[in-house]
């Protein structure tokens, strides 16, 4: 299968969604599961293939699209398709158990979101990246608001405004690049980026930084994020946390290393990441709304990822990628469980985690929590220790101390939730889980444990991805070879 189908299939499915709806709800839901399953299985096939690979669609040269898959994007592709598959399975239960009036709308934008985010990581043309960026953005605005409730609509509008601002910066940056170099091919830009007038180069870098940084929720451009998370449904939050934020992160660092910005801006991004981590974890302490709480937690983890990915050392980046994958799985798990709880209790107070009675949900939720905290034998621990080990090897002890100290703050609210869950004095209501969810959540939890006890499963890919990120010459070769 050509790489192009990664983009095409979701788009087609997205457009066909209303027709599926007419065939019946099961056809609608089944189509989504089918699509994500196909994509996931296809991605798994790519793990055994030598990379990078390229495929081109030329409408009429030079108009066309070229996709390049290298090891770095493969890791993200795995995460995205897997998360998408899990969410689509989860939705089987969700729309059965809940109000399904907006079902069609959800599936349209869900498929679109997949298309956009996958396109963003595969595209090797900066203008196409922008287009996919916009597709992802629009579908996320719509997903945030798809329920048409007050909070959701507010979130959607806010997201839209912020998204537009970010787009403006990116468009300007691309424009400047094109004016300076005369190409939008990432490979060419990367090769000739050093030729740009330094002042303009700074401007371009900053504009890209602001644009993608805003979307990737980096401090101080992330003040909007908690509102969006609070307004959206929980499974949408899972998508935001596991796919959308990660796709922006991908582009951010992909360009960061390709354009050789790592020599100048490492310290800036690392410190901003650290501040993001610190501020969000502290802010999370006082939250009373569970979705908002995990929004801050997501911001905090993104902070660590920014710190580690910008660190310019292969050990740390490998650890960060592991952590990224682990975080995606864990956060997805948490948000999906929260979705079950919220749909039961019709409330988003943090006390709902103390009100339910279900051994299975408690166990998987605690596994998710402990994994994010980085406690063995769960996958988060491996990620965290790899990051710390990387920092230690580069003798960056301040970063180690910082991460560990703030992690204690993080532990405060996570264990407050766990204590709430274990509190026997609260009256507990039993919560129906649903058959599909048993599978989905078990798979996620098992993966967390599996990566925790047998990390080489994942470290293999993260190491390859790190190499691909830091030594991008083969990627560049392919990107340059795009004959458009």
């Amino acid at each position, binding site marked *: 299968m050509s790489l192009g189908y990664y983009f095409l299939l979701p788009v087609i499915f997205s457009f066909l969604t209303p027709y599926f709806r007419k065939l019946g709800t099961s056809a609608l839901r089944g189509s989504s599961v089918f699509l994500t399953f196909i994509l996931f299985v296809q991605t798994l096939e790519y793990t055994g293939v030598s990379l990078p690979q390229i495929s081109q669609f030329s409408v009429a040269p030079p108009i066309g699209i070229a996709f390049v898959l290298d090891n770095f994007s493969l890791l993200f592709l795995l995460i995205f398709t897997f998360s998408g598959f899990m969410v689509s399975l989860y939705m089987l239960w969700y729309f059965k158990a809940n109000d399904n009036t907006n079902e069609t709308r959800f599936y349209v934008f869900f498929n679109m979101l997949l298309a956009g985010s996958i396109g963003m990581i595969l595209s090797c043309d900066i203008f196409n990246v922008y287009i996919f960026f916009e597709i992802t953005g629009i579908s996320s605005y719509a997903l945030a608001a798809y329920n048409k409730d007050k909070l959701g609509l507010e979130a959607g509008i806010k997201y839209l405004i912020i998204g537009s601002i970010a787009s403006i910066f990116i468009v300007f940056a691309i424009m400047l690049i094109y004016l300076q170099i005369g190409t939008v091919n990432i490979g060419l830009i990367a090769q000739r980026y050093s030729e740009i007038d330094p002042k303009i180069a700074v401007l371009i870098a900053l504009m890209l930084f*602001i644009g993608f940084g805003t979307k990737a929720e980096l401090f101080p*451009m992330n003040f*909007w994020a908690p*509102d969006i998370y609070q307004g959206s449904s929980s499974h949408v939050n899972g998508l935001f946390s596991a796919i959308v934020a990660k796709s922006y992160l991908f582009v951010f660092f992909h360009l960061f290393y390709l354009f050789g910005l790592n020599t100048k801006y490492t310290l800036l991004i690392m410190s901003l990441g650290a501040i993001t981590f610190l501020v969000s974890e502290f802010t999370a302490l006082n939250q009373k709304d569970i979705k908002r709480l995990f929004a801050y937690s997501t911001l905090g983890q993104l902070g660590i990822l920014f710190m580690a990915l910008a660190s310019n050392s292969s050990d740390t980046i490998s650890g960060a990628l592991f952590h990224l994958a682990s975080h995606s799985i864990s956060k997805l798990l948490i948000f999906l469980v929260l979705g079950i709880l919220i749909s039961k209790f019709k409330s988003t107070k943090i006390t709902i985690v103390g009100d339910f009675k279900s051994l299975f949900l408690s166990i998987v939720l605690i596994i998710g929590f402990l994994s994010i905290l980085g406690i063995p034998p769960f996958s988060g*621990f491996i990620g965290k*220790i790899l990051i710390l080990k990387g920092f230690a090897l580069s003798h960056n002890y301040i970063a180690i101390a910082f991460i560990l*100290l703030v992690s*204690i703050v993080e*532990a405060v609210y996570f*264990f407050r939730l766990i204590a709430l869950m274990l509190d026997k004095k609260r009256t507990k209501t039993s919560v129906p889980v649903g058959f599909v969810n048993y599978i989905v959540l078990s798979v996620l939890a098992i993966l967390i444990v599996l990566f925790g006890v047998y990390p080489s499963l994942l470290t293999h890919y993260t190491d390859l991805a790190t190499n691909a990120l830091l030594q991008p010459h083969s990627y560049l070769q392919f990107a340059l070879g795009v004959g458009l």
Partner: protein
Amino acid sequence: MNSIFLLLNLLPILFLYQFGGDLHVSLSLTKEFTLSLSQTPLGTFFAYLSLISFLLVTIAQKSKKTSFSYYALQFLLSIAMLAIVLAGDFITFFIGWEIMTWSSYFLISKSSDIDTKSLQKYILFSLASAFSLIAGMVIAYSFANSFDFNVIQNSFHTMPFNIKVALIVLFSLSFFTKAGVIGLHYWVVDTYSKAPDLFSSILSAVMSKMGIYGLFLVYGHLVGYAELKDMFGVILNGTDFGYVLGWIGVITSIIATFKAITQDEVKRLLAYSSIAQLGYIIAVIGMGTSFGVAGAMYHTLIHTIIKLLLFINVAAIVAQTGKNKFSELGGLIYRTPVSFVMLLIGIIALAGMPPLGGFASKFMLYNAAIDSKFALILVGMLFSGAASFLYCYKLVYGIYLGHPTSKDLETQKEVPISYLIPQVILALLLVATGAFPGAFIKVINPILIEFSLNTIPYTSMGVMQSAVGNFNGLFIISAFVVIFVFILLLIWRIKSKAKNNLNRFDISYCGEVPSKNTQLHYGYGFGTDLYRIKFVNAILKRSSSPFYEALATQTKKTAGLLSRMYYGNIHNTMIIILLFFSALYFIGVN
């Protein structure tokens, strides 16, 4: 269920017995990490200590209704501890350490009277300890390029001095927190007192010993006592490092002892007592002499036995009566005589009284201090020992002696046999360690060789050798028994003539007749004298809780301040983004 887990608990012991001695297994986790088990004499000692403790506690659980998850978590905990003590590298050690942390957390949360605050205290301090450990281990990794203990040990002397100090401080902080050194003990008391009654015995007897094991591992194995001496220099006959640690231990022990006396809750008293006893161990662990290590090892053993005995005893009483305060208990001596005798043996050993094992370990500790000529530290240890008589007496008086404070105590039955079996075993162990103090030297000597220290000469089972005199445990215990029996026979005549079993209200009470409503149990009054002694008052009125509470409040305030940024006004967000961009641009361009 109980018997299944009893067998399951036996398995690791049998495994260790069968394959033990020279166990070296390793399993590659990633290309950097390996999980490896490597058995050392030190680890073997601690492994047997913890596994047998778990076995005994499981026996005691027979008559207490316990859920499957409780047993499973407890078994997981025992395996985690086994992983800690047999670990050959830091990754295994740390994984064991963290599994221990969270499995014990869930076990503690199974208690009926646990509250969120205590749970938070426990887990945050445990995590702080773990993070301190993780910081230490990654720093060590950055120089040794391996997490393996042997590699780190070999490359330790090549590290810069400040890194060495940082490593020692980080590891010490981590293990001190687990052992509950004063200042870092904030979690200990609440946790021990609110955990499930039988699990408190594990917490105090075994889990705190993991901190001690860690200290041994770091000081004796990774750093090495010779290296410590080289690094910090020598004071008197010991190391500077040992002197500082000595004072830390002694101060811990003194403060905790006085705090223990004023407690009203039985398990809180035992918790403080646990802190105090671990203070002794910490006081001698850094001395870097054979006697220091031997004393610390011996006291580790004895303290484990004593605290298991006392906590199981108290758990049985709490389960039987449903009361856990001295002011609510009392007068159980003739209702539960066997329990009383067991507790009596426990407190005699805890106070360090001669015929039992408690004295043997104290003797070793004191000899260690004498050996290093740390006289003031020795005086401090003796002083704390003298003060500990008060809480020992409070323990036995408050529960068993005096008057029953409520009616149901007067018709109490003896506790179930399953509680008594482990107690009897432990009491016999205390007698045995008292009678044959020399036997343990055989266990210690391989550890001393492992730490490349001189071995302690072994003459016979009954005699403990020391630098300044010998302690013949066998002689003392037999002399004690002979004289005791002799005097008992002498006054047997008195017994036969005395009016036995007097009504408990028939006491000299200034001509008045106490009634059932008269407060005759002195459980409340214990320790109030201490508040009037200036020095002790200065200790008692101070507490670490204001500091930690202030820290919590300040954190909360900071959080409140920071969360104001996220108030959701989209205009401001836009302005901030633009301003940030322009600021960066001006900085970048210039």
